């Protein structure tokens, strides 16, 4: 369901099959830089494909390729709009 921008809505809250647009990536360390460099930068659409058996890490589709990140990295990625499944 499309809703208005929810402040603080982060990538780890996105359900499997949902996609959304990245608003910003929080943090100051090397992990933030690498997330951005791997293409997770503001404006890009990211889709959650699956979660690992114990719920973490999660696999994403971004810029046409598959990327896995841990849940605590996903928490750094703030999203703009929740897309429909």
């Amino acid at each position, binding site marked *: 369901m499309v809703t208005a921008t929810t402040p603080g809505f982060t990538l780890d809250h996105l359900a499997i099959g949902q996609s959304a647009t990245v608003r910003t990536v929080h943090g100051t*360390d090397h992990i933030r830089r*690498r997330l951005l460099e791997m293409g997770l*930068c*503001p404006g890009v659409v990211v889709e959650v494909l699956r979660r690992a*058996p114990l719920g973490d890490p999660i*696999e994403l589709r971004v810029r046409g390729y598959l990327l896995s990140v841990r849940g605590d990295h996903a928490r750094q990625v703030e999203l703009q709009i929740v897309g429909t499944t």
Partner: protein
Amino acid sequence: MTTAVLPIPPRLAVRAELRSVALAGNPNSGKTTLFNALTGLHQKVANYPGVTVERKSGRCLLPGETVATEIIDLPGTYSLIASSPDERVTANVLFGRQDQVRLPDAVVVVIDASNLPRSLYLVTQLIDCGRPLVVALNMSDIAARRGLVVDHAALERLLGVAVIPMVSHHRRGLADLMQALTCARIPTRIAWPLPQALLTQMQVLGAVLGTDAGGIGGTAHHLLIGDLEGELGNVAMTHAAALAEASRALAAQGVDAVEADITARYRWIDTVVEQVVVRQPSAERRSLTEQVDRVLMHPVLGLVIFAVVMALVFISVFWIAQPLMDGLQDGIARLGTFITAHLADGPLKSLLTDGIIKGVGSVVVFIPQIAILFLFLAILEDSGYLARAAFLMDRILAKVGLHGKSFIPLLSSFACAIPGIMATRTIENRKDRLATILVAPFMSCSARLPVYILLIESCFYPVLPARYQAVGKGLIMLACYVLGIVAAGSIAWLFRHSLLRREVRSSFILEMPSYKLPQFSEVARQMWVNSSKFLTKAGTVIFAFAVLLWAAMYWPRLPPAQERQISAQVAAAPSEDQHITLHERIADAQQSAQISQSYAGKFGHAIAPALAPIGADWKTGIGLVGAFAAREVFVSTLGIVYGVGDTDEQGTGRLSAQLQRDHRANGLKVWSPLAATSILVWFVLAMQCMSTVAVVRRETGGWGWAIAMLVFMNVLAYVSCLGIYQIGSRIWGG
């Protein structure tokens, strides 16, 4: 488009010779395949000084050149701002700050046509880097299957450097690439759509730093986006005030330089991709990889398949290797027999048969297993499954402070810790890697297996109730493996909460590469390179220790008078076994007496007081000395000590019988189940393998961690055995 692209300057008439060319590219871009195609068999693998990063280089004669050009295969990288030792080497070479590597005359960047946006991110950095550049557009075949056709001519126009379409595993486009290299151009700078605030602060800071420092790709740009490698770090320190001022100004305007820089590059890339990629609507919506992943990464089915794959790999490592190992051992034994028959008794004969041939034997016996293990590792990696394994296992391993990528190295360590430790190179974070290296030897390797079997057969089998013998044996064996795993988990957890506490967060940001069929040539090459590394690094240590051990057991010699006395004693005693001749019995008894008073024997006696509290005596002491060459030597050394000669198939049975019969002065069994438990625990936990220590030294870049590992594992083992034997003997009375 706001970004103006300048026309390509005409080809320069005169150019300097190409002495070296570097290959850069993302991991999984097919860079190594291209490197192999360019250099063929003319390759050299070494290490970059001071780091455990492989320096792969080869030679290739480019058209129009008279001298072969050195091709350097740089470690795969996503960015020139490094986040791992591998990436740091790549950036250092490309910026000319890597020790003992000259700045490459040209750079080939391999990009993946099926993964264009992320590949182009590295290209934008390489354009800023300012070395002559050629783009190799690889994997167009995979892209085409997904309905993506890349217009390479348009891409060439937009990037301002030659773009050569190729399918490197079919050698397609290779000649064009070589031709393009001979006229590689320095790319024209491109104005990434950076926010005005950032451009202004680059100018302001650049003016402080000096001429030409304020432009795109200039020093100010590097400093503001936090690239402080090499000389840049010093500049940042000298001009700390100006840098802080510029950063403050940016923050005041709500601009984050790192995010702005990366976003601008990707915004530029998006416009390029829009112009060069033609999408075929007919193509499958989900790629083949995604369809396969629906099964292989399924929360339940995926785990089942994972377990089956790992079990298959593991079982084949043992089963396929077994006949080969037997064959090799047979050949070695025959060689020994041949020498025995053709040489007179004496130190030379003994050195050849018991020293050198046995030493070579204890090395080569590992080779089939190691080679097969490396073969499977290469297949797992080349197919793309390795990343999935890391994904599936990360959560469990992260709980004890390890990493998803620790799984395969730890699994390999059940065959041998050395290939396991070598496989940790894929773990980027240094502390994650160190923790994995330090606990890998707790996995029960195949050299421990003969020891487990001997002790379980000899010491537990007879005391188990008849109905439960088979199950009981299996359970004790399983307990040994589980103990190793539990120890590894606990020690990893302890390390991560003490010495190896993270000062930087551990990360798991892993590309799931497209599946592909492993290429025979690449897999074979990897297996060959790694196996020969094992032979040179570990094999030499095992061999040296085997020869040293021989010398320690050979000298000093038993006095002739004592030898005669032993033969008389044996001749007088009744024979217990009809299959053994009197001559053999005498030889075995003499050998036993010899080893007991040799240097190794003296050492065994000397450490006996320390072994008594853990339930062992001097005979075990000699066996433990033997185990330092390789753990399974414990069995054959014990065989000699107990006077049953070499432990071949019947020999182990005879050794078992001897162990059962051995009693202490107080009438209690030397090898009671309690004492055997203590020694089993010792073998699970102790670090005895000198070749592992040597490999740890090499992989961690110094003796510090290697010695620390030797000490802590052995202290842990001793304390555990002490606890088990002391408490156990108070309860059950030894």
